[in-house]
C-alpha cells in the first residue's frame, strides 16, 4: 500500500511540475526560456505516462516531442533571431478580458481531468495496468489501423507541401 501511495505522490509531483512549467511557458517574456519550460513540461508529462503504466508512450513523448519537435522550434527561434528584443516589441495583451475565454475552457478541462483522476474505479485501472510496446503495436495495426493510415496520409500531404514550398523558383547552378 505504501508503494502505491508513493507512486501516486510521484505522479502528482510530476503533474505539478508540468502545470507550473506550462504556466511559465505562456507568461514568460523570453522566447527561448519559454521553449525550455515547454521541454520541462513535456518531460514531466512523460514521467506521468510512465507512472500510469505506459512506458512506451513515455519514451515516445521524450523522443518525438522533447527531442525532435521542440529542437526544431528552438532552431527556428535561433534562425530568426527571436530573442528578448523581439518579445519586448510584441503587442501586449490588454487586460483580463482577453484571457477570459481561454481560461474558461481550460477550467472546464481541469474539472474534467480532476473528475477522471478522482474516479476511484478508473484510478485502480490506471495504476494496475501496464501497457507495453507490443500491445501498443497490436492496437495501432489492429483496431486503429484506419487512424494510422489517415495520419500517414496527412503527414505525406504535409511533406509534399513542404517540398513544394522549399523548392527554389529559379533553378540556378549548384554550389
Amino acid at each position, binding site marked *: 500500500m505504501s508503494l502505491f501511495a508513493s507512486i501516486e505522490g510521484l505522479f502528482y509531483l510530476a503533474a505539478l511540475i508540468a502545470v507550473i512549467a506550462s504556466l511559465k511557458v505562456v507568461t514568460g517574456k523570453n522566447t527561448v526560456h519559454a521553449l525550455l519550460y515547454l521541454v520541462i513540461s513535456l518531460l514531466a508529462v512523460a514521467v506521468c505516462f510512465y507512472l500510469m503504466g505506459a512506458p512506451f508512450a513515455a*519514451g515516445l513523448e521524450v523522443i518525438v516531442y522533447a*527531442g525532435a519537435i521542440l*529542437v526544431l522550434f528552438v532552431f527556428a527561434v535561433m534562425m530568426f533571431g527571436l530573442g528578448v528584443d523581439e518579445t519586448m516589441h510584441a503587442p501586449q495583451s490588454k487586460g483580463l478580458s482577453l484571457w477570459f475565454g481561454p481560461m474558461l475552457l481550460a477550467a472546464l478541462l481541469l474539472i474534467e481531468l480532476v473528475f477522471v483522476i478522482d474516479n476511484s474505479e478508473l484510478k485502480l485501472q490506471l495504476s494496475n495496468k501496464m501497457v507495453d510496446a507490443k500491445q501498443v503495436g497490436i492496437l495501432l495495426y489492429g483496431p486503429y489501423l484506419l487512424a494510422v493510415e489517415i495520419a500517414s496520409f496527412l503527414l505525406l500531404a504535409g511533406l509534399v507541401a513542404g517540398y513544394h514550398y522549399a523548392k527554389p523558383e529559379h533553378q540556378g547552378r549548384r554550389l
Partner: protein
Amino acid sequence: MKPEILWHLLEITIIIALLIPIAATLVWVERRMIGIWQDRHGPNRVGPFGILQSLADLLKILGKEDWIPPFSDRLVFTIAPVIGAVCVLMSFAVIPFTPDIGVSNLNIGLLFFLAMASLSVYSVVLAGWASNSKYAMLGGMRAAAQTVSYEVFMGLSVMGVVLLTGTFNLREIVLAQTDGWLIQSQFIGFFVFLIAGIAESHRLPFDLPEAETELTAGFHTEYSGLKFALFFLGEYLSVTLISAMSVVLFFGGWLMPAPLDTWLPPLVWFILKILFFVFFFILLRTSLPRPRFDQLLAFGWKIMLPVALVNLLLTAALRLGGIL
C-alpha cells in the same frame, strides 16, 4: 527493501566514479594514439608514459577563471554544459555491463537511450544560443540540423535489432544473442548506427558544430574553465556510450563464443569490446577529412535514410519468411 536501495545507490556511485576517470584517460589515450599514428610522441612527460597528463590538465582547468560573458544569457549559459553531461551519464543507467552489473533493467532501455541521445542536443544548441556570439550561434544551428536528421535513422537502424529480438530491454537483447551475435544479420544496421553515433557525439569527421578551422571552436567558443571541461567530458563519455551500445546491440554484450568465454570474466570481455570501438573512433579522427555541411546533410537524408529503411524492410521480410 532498504539494503537493495542502498546497493543500487552504491552501484550507481561506483559506475559514475569509474566512468569519469575513464573519460579523462581517454583524452590521453587519444592524444598518444594520434601521436603514434602521426609518427610523433604525443604527451609523454607527466607520470609513466604520460598517463597523468589528463590529471595535470584537469588541475589546470580547475584553476582557470570561470568566465561568463556579460553579453550571454547567464542561466542558459550555465545549464547547457550540465545538460550534456547528465544526459550521457543517464544513458549509462540502462547499459547491462555483465549478467549482474547494471543500474536499471528498464523494459524500454533502448528507447531510453534514444531519448537521452535526442535530449543531449539541447546542450549544444543552447550553448550556441546563450553565448550570443556568431561562431557559437552557427555551431549551435549546425548541431541542431545535424542531430535531428541523424537521430531519425539512428532510431531506424536499431529497429532491426528490436524486430529480431522482440524486446526493447537491453539485457534481453544481449541474452537473445547467446546463439550468435546480431552483427551476422544486421551488419547494414550496424554501419548506419555507427555513423549516426559518430554524428551524435560530434566526433570527426562529423564535428561540424565545433569545426575549428571555420568556426573557431563552434558552440563552445565562449566557454572556459569547468564548463568547458564538462563539454569535453560529455564528448568522451558519449564516445564510450556509443561504443558500449554498439557492443550491446550488435556484438553480444558480455557474451563470447564457446571456447573464449571461460578465458576471461564477462566484464573484461565487455570492456575489451568497448575499447576496440573507442580505438576505431580515434583512428577515424586521424584519418578522415571533414565534409562540407550541406554534404553531411545530403549524405544523411539521401543515402543513410534509404539504406536504414531498406535494411528494416529486408529484416522484416526475412523474419516473416522465417529465414532469420
